[in-house]
Structures are given as C-alpha cells and as structure tokens.
C-alpha cells in the first residue's frame, strides 16, 4: 500500500512543483496587497457612481470561482492572435492576485475605519497635507490591525494555488498527479503533497496567530 521507494522518487519532483507554488503565492500576495490597498484607498476620493461601479466589480470577482476566472483569462489571452506567449504561471499569479486583492481591500478598509476619528482631526489641526496624513498617521495605525488578516489571506491563497492545475501550471498538486499518472503511485504522491501543504501552512497560521496577539492594541 505504501511504498517508500516511490515516495523517495516522488519527493524531488514534488518539491520542484512546490517552487512554482511558492512563486505563485509570493507574487500573488504582493499583487493582492498592493492592489487591495489601492482599491481600499482610491475608492474614498472617487465620485459616487464610480465608487458604486468599483464595488460591484469587487463583489463580482469575490463571488465567482477562481478556477473559472483562471480559465477565462487563460483562454482570452490565447485567443488574441500575434500575442507573445504569456506563461501560464504569470497569468496564474496575476489572476490569483486580483482575486485576493478584493478580499484584502476589505481588510484594509476595516483597518482604516478602525483608526479613531481624533487622529484625522489632529492631523487636520496640525495642517498636515492629506498625503502625509495618510502615509504618516493613518496607514501605520491601520496596518497594525490589517497585517494579521492579510497573512491569513496569504495562507488561503497558498492553499488555492492548486487551482492553477486548471491552466496546466505544474505546481505541487499537478506534479503529484502527473507522478501518480505515470507510476500509479497515487497514494504516495498525494499523501506527500498533503503533508507538504500541512507542513507549510500550519506553522504559518500559528505564526500569524501570535502576530495577531502581539499587534493587538484595542
């Protein structure tokens, strides 16, 4: 049932796939964190109808499956004639990044809302320009409350990277499936894949829990 030889053979292949998983997670997180902040901040100064439109688009991206979005963008790119081949991995982390930016913008928004109004008033009283008010007063306080939840979304994103299977990126699970397909050692391949996921995500979420406790101010 369990063959250690197959397991030993599978491990390096899986770890090579894991590199793609990590790339997608890290780049996806960076995209999501930046875009999420832009979404959360920019929305404040816009006219009402644009604001409404952005919120609708955000709700749309949040409430539709990541897999379908991945396939959509992947095929849409391959439909455009004369376009240089965009690697599937690049499409993957862009789409994942955009998908999760809609979640992260929500955490940023609640973080900014949690900054006491007195802080804004004090900044106005000191006649700080709006940009400084934002970067020096509001954001540092808002981020304190936001970072743990951004971390949780990064872990969630990590666990969603196997969806890149849909657009044939060879990440961890795809590598496991291919190995299983060629040797029929599905048991070893998928069990190891699960263990790798658990080994990476559980300590990270424990770390985030500790961070949450340390950063908690209120």
């Amino acid at each position: 049932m369990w063959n250690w030889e197959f397991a030993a053979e599978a491990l390096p292949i899986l770890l090579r796939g894991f590199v793609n998983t990590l790339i997608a997670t890290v780049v996806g997180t960076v995209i999501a964190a930046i875009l999420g902040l832009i979404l959360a901040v920019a929305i404040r100064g816009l006219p009402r109808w644009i604001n409404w439109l952005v919120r609708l688009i955000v709700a749309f991206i949040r409430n539709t499956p990541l897999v379908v979005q991945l396939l959509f963008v992947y095929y849409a790119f391959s439909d455009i004639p004369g376009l240089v081949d965009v690697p599937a991995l690049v499409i993957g982390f862009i789409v994942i990044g955009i998908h999760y930016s809609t979640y992260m913008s929500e955490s940023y928004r609640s973080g900014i809302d949690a900054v006491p109004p007195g802080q804004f008033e004090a900044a106005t009283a000191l006649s700080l320009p709006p940009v400084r008010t934002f970067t020096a007063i509001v954001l540092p306080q808002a981020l304190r409350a936001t970072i743990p939840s951004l971390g949780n979304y990064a872990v969630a994103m990590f666990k969603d990277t196997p969806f890149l299977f849909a657009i044939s990126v060879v990440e961890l699970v795809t590598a496991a499936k291919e190995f299983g397909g060629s040797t029929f050692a599905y048991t070893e391949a998928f069990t190891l894949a699960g263990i790798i996921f658990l080994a990476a995500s559980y300590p990270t979420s424990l770390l985030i829990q500790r961070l949450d406790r340390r950063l908690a101010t209120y």
Partner: protein
Amino acid sequence: MNDNVTTLLNFLPQLWEGVQTTIILTVAGSIGAVIIALILGLTMTSPTAWLRIPARIVVEFFRGTSLLVQLFWLFYVLPLLGVDFDPMACGVAALALNYGAYSAEVVRSSIKTVAPGQWEAAIALSLSPTRRMVRVIFPQAWALMIPSLATLLIQLLKGTAVVSFITLSDLTDKTEQLRQSTGDTMFAYSISLLIYFALAWLLQEFMNFLERRATKALGRRRPNSRTDRREARRAARADAVRKDRLKSHVAAGEGTNHTKGPFPGQGGDL
C-alpha cells in the same frame, strides 16, 4: 454574435444540467459541512481534553491540506485502498470536509462569544448541560455564526468549480463545452460567471433570511437590518420636516420658544 445566441439557445438544456450539478454539489456539500462543523465545533468547546484535542487535530488537518489535495486523494487514492466512491460522492465529501473544518472554527468561536452571564444563568437555573446548550447557548451562537457561515458557504459554491477535474460535468465543464462550440471565450465565460454570481447572490439571500429568523427568535434584530434602516430614514425625514417648520416659523417672525414647552428656550430641541 447572433450565432452565439443561437448556439447558446441550443445549448441551454445542457447548461441547465451543469447548473443542476453545481447546485446539488453546493447544497449537499453545505449540509454536510454544517453537520461536520456542528459536531467538530461543539466537541472543540468540550471541557474534556480527550474530546477537544482529537477534534482540533481533525480540523487543523482538513484546514491545512488544500481542497484539491483532499479531492484527488478521495478520487485517486481511495480506489487503490479498495474503497470506491462515485465522483459525485467524492466531490460532496471533499467539499463537506474542507469547508466543514473551516466552519467548525466559526461554530467554536461563536459558542465562546455568547455572553458569560448566559452560561451562568443557565447553571443557576440548574438546566442540564444538554438543555443549556440546546435552549440557551446554541440559539444565540447560531445567530452569531450565520454571517461567517454565509461567507464560507459562498466559498464552497466557488469551490465546486474544481469538481470538473474529477470528471464531473458541472457548470465549469459545460462552460468549456460552450466555449468550444462558439469559439468565443468572452461570451461563454461571461455567461458562466454571471450564473455563478447569481447563485452566490441567492445563497447570500437565503443566509440573510436564516439570520433574520434566528435573530427574531431571540427577540432581536440583525445589525443594520432593513427595519433599522427604515426607522432611521423615517427619523431623518421627521427631523428634516421639523427643522423646515422651525425655519419657516422663524422667517414668519412667530417667535421661537412659546410653542413647545412652558419655559423659554425649551422650544427648539434641535
């Protein structure tokens, strides 16, 4: 474009089949997830470590390994171990286990956030532990957990899209067929995304309905409920009318303070 519409019309029965598969998976998966969540969540609040720790391990296990790993494990590995599930059962089981583990955490934390006075009152009335949970604690925790459960169940709906990887023909799979027969990615996928969005909206409305019912049973109202908003609007309107009237009184020089109270200065309560 017209060709697309004709193809879509011919494809509608098949598309509906795909939607049905997605709905069945969502509903069955949700029911399974809620049952698993209640069992594991209640066990995790148990004072006995022998019950609490195994439940915690199960939850962390299913939360920590990815949905797709679990799905593939059920689909590819179990047959090798001699257990054969059909793809539908695999899909429902993977969704229920994965999202059930996430929901168990919601159940646990909701039960823990019920006001301690409620626990103490139930103990003071010497209700048995079962009655205390069923009649006092759980109804309150239920109202608290519904919004988070709603988010997770929408995640589950979105998660159903992966079952097309284990040969099930759900909405995602039918979308792919529609794309191939129309040759128009934009068209096929826009329709599919709109259907998913509509399903998510329906699910959200259903959960809102459950929450309204749960809070009403407690004699409370949902935060920012429709009734709350209506009352706020009515108050604002009455306020505006009053302000308006006051202004016109002032403009007409009818005096300001003898209209409402016996004492001068009491009139304008704005």
